[in-house]
């Protein structure tokens, strides 16, 4: 069976191999290195991994574990490469973009904030959005607006937050939850790999 490589992201923290379970239950997770850049990969038997909940979770779990002590530019689900050579080609070609992206997310994590109206409750959406954006803007570096896929979603944002601001961010989230109690439900998630704060397009070969 031909082995391809499934990639999770890129780091400049050096080569490693860890006993983690990756997409399609592959193990271990290791790196393919080009100069100071390392692509984080596991072996896979197909170029088109199935987009199941389980696989998405495995992809995310690998990144969650690795970002605990490394800076990682995450790749979206489904990036596969024929072999190490193809992947090294991407690392070589993308050196500048990776350097910039790694600098941007160094020492930071992504946190997700969703505010959802309680059933049957109407709120001044604009006012809520303005308030939340202002308060969280003071304790974060960047904000990314995500799709409002439900009529009940008032806010669906991702924030890039430096490690040292995490506690302050938590406090503001606590204040917001209290302020809107009875009107809005708050879903606060993370830390995530900074998916929403890197804009590197990779053409898989």
């Amino acid at each position, binding site marked *: 069976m031909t082995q391809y490589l499934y990639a999770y992201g890129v780091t400049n923290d050096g080569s490693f191999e860890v006993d983690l379970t990756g997409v399609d239950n592959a193990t271990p997770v290791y790196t393919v290195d080009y100069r100071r850049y390392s692509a984080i990969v596991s072996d896979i038997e197909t170029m088109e991994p199935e987009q199941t909940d389980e696989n998405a979770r495995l992809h995310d779990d690998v990144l969650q574990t690795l970002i605990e002590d490394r800076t990682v530019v995450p790749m979206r689900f489904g990036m596969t490469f024929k072999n190490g050579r193809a992947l090294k080609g991407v690392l070589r070609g993308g050196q500048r973009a990776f350097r910039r992206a790694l600098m941007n997310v160094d020492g930071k994590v992504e946190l997700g904030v*969703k505010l*959802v109206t309680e*059933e049957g409750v109407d709120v001044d959406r604009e006012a809520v959005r303005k308030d939340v954006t202002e308060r969280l803007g003071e304790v974060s570096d960047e904000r990314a607006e995500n799709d409002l*896929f*439900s009529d*009940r*979603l008032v806010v669906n944002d991702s924030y890039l937050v430096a490690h040292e601001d995490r506690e302050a961010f938590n406090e503001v989230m606590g204040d917001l939850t209290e302020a809107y109690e009875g009107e809005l*439900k708050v*879903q606060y998630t993370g830390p995530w790999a900074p998916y929403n704060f890197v804009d590197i397009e990779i053409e898989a070969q």
Partner: protein
Amino acid sequence: MFILDRLLMKPFLTIADTLHTMAVNEVYDVGAIQDELKETRLLYELGELDRETYEVRSEQLRDDLELAEEMQQKLLSGNVQVAQT
């Protein structure tokens, strides 16, 4: 407005064809079904739906999504024929 735009872009398309295409697009709206799937997930995570309701509903939506994607694919390739009544 939308119908007019379509007619201007494709002058040989009949109004019936255009309406039919729009109807198929609406019934098999992939984006809307994806949104509904995400909403179902969110409501489950917020504790408004119990696990069973969530599973039943999302499985149904996944089936709908598969069908919609298939229909859109056929629509794009011009292989869908809908009888006019």
